[in-house]
């Protein structure tokens, strides 16, 4: 029940860390199918997402320290930057912008527009992944494998770990897109869209970070 409701929900902001009493707003303003648990959801997912991002940041921070340490050793040979990475970088940057446009459309309850932007975002996300794979294939064609030299080791390691995380975001994104295309964006899917946006932008920023670390530092 309730998944196809599109009314705007008035929920007062839920106190997250301040210790004040939890206030879900006036139940008279709740749409049908909405419960106290639902009133907590937006904050819950947002907190959970930021915590997850903290943890992912630590993973890549640890790998960065290993990278910086390893770079100083004499057997380090830099690999050529595969040109398809420029395309994938452009794709993921564009996907962040289209995701923001989708989010704005959702906030204005313009659902047809939202569907269009979110579909474009998914397409750009897939495009990013495809061009990452093209980059791996290019390097393999040149004979650059994971064990060729430390730089190539880090290249495959960082890009594949990023891809693993990105695929998680892509699955959520595709779920939101599928719901949007069937015009079933209720308050629950809206939460998913909001946190997926946070995650997606983080994946974008993380990719730029990895790209710069690998080839421009």
């Amino acid at each position, binding site marked *: 029940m309730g998944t196809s409701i599109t009314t705007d929900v008035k929920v007062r902001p839920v106190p997250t860390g301040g210790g004040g009493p939890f206030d879900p707003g006036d139940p008279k303003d709740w749409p049908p199918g909405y419960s106290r648990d639902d009133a*907590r959801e937006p904050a819950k997912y947002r907190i959970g997402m930021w915590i997850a991002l903290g943890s992912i940041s630590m993973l890549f921070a*640890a790998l960065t320290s290993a990278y910086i340490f390893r770079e100083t050793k004499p057997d380090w040979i830099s690999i050529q930057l595969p040109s398809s990475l420029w395309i994938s970088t452009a794709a993921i940057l564009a996907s962040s912008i289209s995701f923001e446009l989708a989010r704005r459309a959702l906030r204005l309850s313009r659902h047809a527009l939202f569907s269009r932007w979110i579909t474009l975002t998914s397409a750009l996300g897939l495009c990013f992944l495809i061009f990452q794979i093209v980059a791996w294939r290019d390097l393999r064609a040149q004979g650059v494998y994971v064990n060729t030299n430390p730089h190539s080791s880090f290249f*495959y390691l960082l890009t594949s770990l990023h891809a693993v995380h990105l695929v998680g975001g892509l699955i959520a994104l595709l779920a939101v897109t599928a719901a949007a295309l069937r015009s079933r964006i209720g308050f629950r899917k809206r939460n998913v869209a909001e946190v997926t946006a946070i995650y997606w932008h983080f994946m974008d920023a993380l990719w730029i970070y990895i790209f710069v670390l690998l080839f421009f530092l």
Partner: protein
Amino acid sequence: MAEAHPVHGEVHRHEPPSGFIRKWIFSVDHKVIGIQYWFLALFSVFVGMIMSLLMRLQLAWPGREWGFLKTLLPAAAENGTISPELYLSLVTMHGTIMVFFVLTTAPQGGFGNYFLPIQIGAADMAFPVLNMLSFWLTFVALAVMMLAIFANVIDDTAAVGVVGPIGGWTGYAPLSALGERAGPGQGTGVVLWITSIAFFCVASLLGALNFITTMLNLRTRGMSLLRLPLTCWAWFTTAVLALLSFPVLLAGGVLMLFDHIGGTSFFVPAGSYVNGQLVMEKQGGSVILWQHLFWYFGHPEVYIAILPGMGLTSHILSTFARKPVFGYRAMVYAIFAIGLLGFFVWGHHMFQSGMDPNTAIVFSVITLAIGVPSAIKTFNWLGTLWGARIRFTTPMIFSIGFVSLFVSGGITGIFLGQTAVDIPLHDTYFVVGHFHLIMGVAAIFGMFAGTYFWFPKMFGRMMNETMGKIHFFITFIGVNCIFMPMHIMGIAGAPRRYSSHEGLAYLGDSFMPMTKFVSIAAFVTIAAQLIFVVNLVWSWFKGPKAGENPWEATSLEWTIPSPPPHDNFAGHEPDVHHGPYEYSVPGAEKDYTMQTDPERAKSAGD
């Protein structure tokens, strides 16, 4: 108590699942998951204990042939003796299983899962499905770890004569990154071992995410941060530590897997010479890199193991001293301080790695600074006990035992935190004695205290007090007999990780009687744990029925039936009006004020 507020506080009622599999196997109920974690830890602790028993047999009677070993470990100990390699694999697996699957699992995944939502007045964790996933990933991790014991079944050219890798629970490079040529179990064994740890990391991260979100978002009306029981603060801080330290171990683990499977060289330096072979194909790696990544996780891990025990001890001491916790705020800040400082001291595990003495001094000073919040906690525990009419129940004496072990284990931490003392003691039994007392046994005492304290709530029946007290006294005296002599042997220079001290000229035979004494004390202490198991099983079926609040305690879990219903508060959210430790409040009619009790009229003294 929950029935007292029928008007407001209607929440979405969760219907309990009906099928056996959804209810007991793939359950999303935090209480079932907590019990699953607890039993996973109980299984693991017995595996780990059997391994320590075998090690103690070898140390006290080196080279002796044991008939039962031929049946127990037909592949690893064909002729019934414990070879040096087998001994090292026992050391490795004992440490790994105990640290990850017992010390990290039971206090946080077990008790934390079960009681954090109830103590904050929530119906479940924030993300129940994620919670189920983190338990089952932990289970997979344990299964893969068990597989590492039988690595030779998978790869019959590898891991002959051992029960896993032989590199210790710290898996130091380069030996952990070179495969089978670095010793039996170092190939397939290490791959399985590090895979298991990677699974465990992911599981712990999902768990930590859930704990933090739950505590920040799901507190009930009136449950302000400073009305939280100290157990909640401990679980929260532990979750933050796990969240920030496990990713670093995961990074190290992934690099190590790449070294094994991908042919990379992250951890193997050029010119490594191992077991008579020169390593030709790898160069440029760093063994110190692994140590940094490992200990950046490894030190916070120590607090992941002990902080929940500290929270529990504070909670239980206050309950049975019938007094508020001495300095509640100071206790909360001390937990934070320990957690925070814990991230800046990993270098004290690496004083022997050729570290610049100036760097070592920084690590040393921060390490010693942890003594301050630790002392605050200890003195506040003593302050809580001071002048109290103590009820000496089993959970209470285990908590007092925790304080005792925390002090004896913590004092030697001050010794080892100083470079000049650490360097001669580092590879001796002094360190073994130190960390077993504080991280091993003190944390285990926290778990025992928690079990005896919460068993009535979890299973609706009281545990047997007489058996509990016998269990306590044998265990408490036993662990001191095991680990105290290790300090003396360590100062005399007895090296750790050796399968035998025979033939060490500077030790001679002088420590043989002490070694035998320690072994016998270990056997007695291990045997005493069977009393606990008997008590557990007997009480589960035959123990006297426990009421809602058998200990006359104040926190929210004691306002609901034992065992609690599926959604904890039967569809209502409790209203909290008091702090968690309002015992013996002057002018109150009974000596404890429940957190949900209606507010009293303020008297002049308030």
